[in-house]
């Protein structure tokens, strides 16, 4: 076909520019500039849209970290986590005598 890189055909390019342009650029520019002014500056929605993906990623990362820490906390057994009943029934804790009394005197 050609070498590795095409060389620009300047003559064809000039003819194409001539064929595709109509010399009425100034009118078009005025029209578009008026539309831009009428549209106003890009609003907060555009600014927020710019940060959408970053925000989404940050939220996802926060959720993942929070979820991981909650799961990790639940999975770790609490050291010395005996139930109140076991603590009372071992007979050495304050109030255990009252509990034993109540249990033995119950009808």
């Amino acid at each position, binding site marked *: 076909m*050609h070498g590795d890189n*095409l060389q620009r055909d*300047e003559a064809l390019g000039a*003819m*194409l520019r001539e064929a*595709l342009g109509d010399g009425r650029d100034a009118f078009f520019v005025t029209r*578009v500039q008026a*539309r*831009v002014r009428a549209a106003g500056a*890009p609003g907060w929605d555009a600014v927020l849209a710019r940060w959408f993906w970053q925000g989404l990623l940050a939220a996802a990362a926060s959720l993942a970290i929070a979820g991981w820490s909650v799961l990790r906390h639940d999975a770790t057994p609490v050291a010395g986590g005996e139930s109140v009943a076991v603590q009372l029934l071992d007979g050495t804790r304050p109030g255990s005598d009252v509990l034993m009394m109540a249990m033995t005197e119950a009808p």
Partner: protein
Amino acid sequence: MTGVDDAALAARAAQGDAEAFGELVARHAPMARRVAHAVLENAEDADDAAQEGFLSAWTNLGRYDASRAFRPWLMQIVVNAARDLRRRRRVRATEPLDTVPAQARDDPAREAGNTDLGERLREALATLPERQRLAVTLFDAEGYSQAEIARMLGIPEGTVKSDVFHGRRALRTVLGHVKEEWDAR
């Protein structure tokens, strides 16, 4: 504002400076109109698409990566706007815009009957598939590199090269016929 480069103007425009964006419009309007014309084959539709492209660029300036050239970014938006409009027109008309007979596709010069070179070139362009039209216009007329065109159109560089080659061949055929006609006079 003539001494200010595109990136600086785009940065000011991104802060809401409509004057800076207006300068970018003035700089790139001729090219945007020609590229849209290459897609749509109709000057009025091309202006609608180019305008839509500029307005879309204005509202999406926040997404422009200032480390890259502004012009290809803008032109990609214009190409997309032109292609969208072309699709909408097609749906509305329920027939393709490419209404050039198959005979003319085989020999673009046969269908091109008048002597105006610009008209003959536009007719010849209309016989090409859209991607070839864009590739040859962006490369030869607008000076984009193969890599930039590949990024803009979302195709491999090799395909750009092939499209430019085939597009040129068809256009040169037409130019050859025109030259023969002029020489015969």
